[in-house]
């Protein structure tokens, strides 16, 4: 395997890790505040559809992005009302959102575009296009670093850079700001926050809202950057993989980057069965390669990666005790 091939695989690792990373950080905000969110999948899917649909109809990917975020936020609000305001079961609410999104997107797509539940392909300004970073061309000839800068770091869509910048930003918010301190506290012991005179409901809605924005960006990325349009079930379990990555990352932003990169890498090599065959000399079934991220998910969830302690008040609606 030559240097350029490695760069290609890593490049597609970054592309494929981006939606996972965004969804994982979305889940991180929500779960750190004590709201389990199994509905990441549904929110991404809804955002993917609405971003593609609006981008196609208006010709502007930015309006598409906004529509995607709005759709995801609407589902987040639903989750918040069910699980925070009405103190319902967070898992049930999340599952309901996933079903709702899976059915509604296809139904509306068929109604609007009559293309078998997909949106028409996006072109031009209807998609996020890659950005060439400054000096990428001129530095390309520098050995090693040149190709790394040109092929790996440069040439992604704006959303990829946003996703990666979200990692230090999330860390900073969580551990260096008042909002972060309160957010973490409300996921550990909401009674402590309540008796300190801070609104538990307000904090949790804020967290769920941030989760909605990030899922919206993740979904829009799927339909308007990674692919050129919406197809049925295009989130393909990424919401669940992001949840597994979140557990793997022990609810920490930098670990989230690493765990989603691992999943992204597995998805990337699944696209290059030829490489695997050349490297290890045996032909591996494509189906097996495709299944790798999901197998890893099962392994992580089965607890083979050491003990992960979730936020202590996670999943529990907050009820004032008498």
């Amino acid at each position: 395997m030559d240097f350029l091939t490695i760069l290609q695989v890593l490049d597609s690792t970054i592309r494929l890790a981006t939606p996972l990373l965004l969804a994982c950080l979305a889940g991180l905000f929500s779960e750190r505040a004590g709201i389990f969110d199994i509905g990441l999948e549904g929110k991404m899917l809804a955002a993917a559809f609405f971003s593609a649909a609006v981008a196609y109809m208006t010709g502007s990917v930015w309006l598409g992005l906004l529509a995607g975020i709005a759709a995801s936020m609407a589902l987040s609000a639903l989750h918040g009302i069910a699980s925070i305001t009405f103190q319902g079961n967070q898992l049930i609410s999340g599952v309901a959102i996933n079903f709702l999104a899976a059915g509604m997107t296809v139904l509306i797509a068929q109604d609007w575009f009559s293309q078998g539940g997909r949106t028409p392909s996006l072109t031009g300004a209807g998609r996020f296009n890659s950005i060439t970073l400054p000096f990428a061309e001129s530095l390309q000839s520098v050995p090693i670093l040149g190709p790394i800068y040109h092929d790996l770091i440069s040439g992604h869509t704006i959303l990829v850079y946003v996703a990666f910048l979200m990692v230090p930003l999330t860390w900073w918010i969580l551990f260096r700001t008042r909002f972060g301190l309160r957010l973490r506290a409300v996921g550990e012991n909401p009674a402590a926050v309540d008796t300190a005179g801070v609104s538990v409901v307000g904090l949790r809605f804020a967290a769920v809202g941030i989760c909605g924005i990030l899922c919206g960006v993740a979904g829009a990325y799927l339909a308007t950057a990674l692919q050129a349009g919406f197809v049925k079930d295009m989130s393909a379990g990424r919401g669940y993989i992001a949840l597994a990555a979140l557990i793997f990352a022990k609810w920490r932003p930098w670990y989230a980057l690493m765990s989603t990169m691992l999943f992204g890498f597995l998805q990337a090599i699944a696209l290059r069965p030829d490489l695997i065959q050349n490297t290890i000399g045996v032909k591996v079934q494509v189906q097996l390669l495709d299944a790798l991220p999901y197998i890893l998910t099962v392994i992580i969830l089965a607890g083979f990666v050491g003990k992960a302690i979730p936020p202590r008040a996670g999943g529990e609606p907050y009820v004032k005790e008498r």
Partner: protein
Amino acid sequence: MSGTAPAIELKGISKAFGPVQANKDISIRVMPGTIHGIIGENGAGKSTLMSILYGFYKADKGEVFINGTKTEIPDSQAAIAAGIGMVFQHFKLVENFTVVENVILGAEDGAMLTPSIAKARKSLKQLAEEYELNVDPDAKIEDLSVGHQQRVEILKALYRQADILILDEPTGVLTPAEADHLFRILDNLRNEGKTIILITHKLREIMEYTDTVSVMRQGEMTATVKTAETSPEQLAELMVGRKVLLRVDKKPAAPGDVVLSVKDLKVTDGAGVERVKGISFDIRAGEIYGIAGVAGNGQSELMEVLGGMRTGTGTISLNGEPVDLTGKYSDGQSRRARGISHVPEDRHDEGLILDYTAWENTIFGYHRDPKWSSGPLMNNAAIIQEAEAKMQRFDVRPPIPTLKAKSFSGGNQQKIVLAREIEKNPDLLLVGQPTRGVDIGAIEFIHQEIIRLRDEGKAILLVSVELDEIRSLSDRIAVMFDGKIMGERDPETTDERELGLMMAGISEEPDKPAWKAVEENLEAVEHGEAPKHG
């Protein structure tokens, strides 16, 4: 007095939860710079009243005056702004945060954390010096002893400039020495002009430490008196509404043969930590063997092994016959068959199934008894009839077997458990925390039942964290610390000070003041393999 306004004045406070009137037209005045006690049974409405004052609940009716000014307290934020701080019975701390993070939570100075933390660190140091409130600002809460966690709660209130401090049952989880330290802190605070409200059910604390005291019964304030002008007997009568025997009346024990013999018993918990580290003792027929100690020093595990809820190593014999500790006959069913009854420490988790009816709860563990069956079916009518008789005899109120266990008060729930276990006429009765969360009237009854059983010639093992209870019921007292028995004492000749030291792991009397020795010992324990309290 007439010149100063009361620090707190409540006028006509009423609060109902559904059909339950928790507070009825309550008025109270607390002068600044005093310690004011509020005493009452469980469910008398003490905590509700204080939660209203702290903005946790909204009163249906009534007014609050702070330092003479009428004040609305719609939420905790408003209470904090009015200078009120509260130390809840169950601490409201974030366990995996540091002390300083807990202190600033909700009282940060700006959107960024770093300056807030620096400021809090400085002010914690000052408060520590001023009030003997030493605690490491960078320690995580989960690594601190319960006594230190409580100090963090007090620090939280003081950091928010509280002038009025409410403490809800603050000594329930403390060793006597830790409690002494707490009251020294409260004394310092009073001397600085702070006003303290102490909610407790312990008459002794009221008598020793408060200036004035209010008594609550069934949601009403029955009296407010100067502590110096009242007596424990009078307060107890005001609480319960009738005369109460505070001292347990009992004849000297007449011990017979050894019933239970425990030799070198060791218990390791699920996490691999040795909880009981080789203890030996005998209990004879007709005696009560009391085990004192701060919660979490192996008493629970000891009870669970004896009751067949977990396994251990060593030897146990009952009436001279060995008892299976690990094998097929080491379960609770076999223990009951051998004549060991068990009143577990936690009646909600282990003693009862709260969502089941009282009559169902009166046969759990004995449900295989053929007398409850007719063929393959349960003979419900017979069980209900018998349950009603038991409930009458044990004074369970109301004596309605078809009510769910959760609808009874703590004292009556405990009576249901006792009725089930005592009625089987066991040779050995294991009783854990028999009066935790039980009101005074019911405590009296439960204590009398335990003594009656002893006088019938049964052996009784009593585990309790209430030292007063151990001292008044037991014929012999053992103190457990860190999985070992520190020693046995005769309740007639020992005193609270000696037992308190043993509870903190100190067997000899040192020259230095007791609280200091305990303090050092606890600190040493905290840094090594700490016996986790609570």
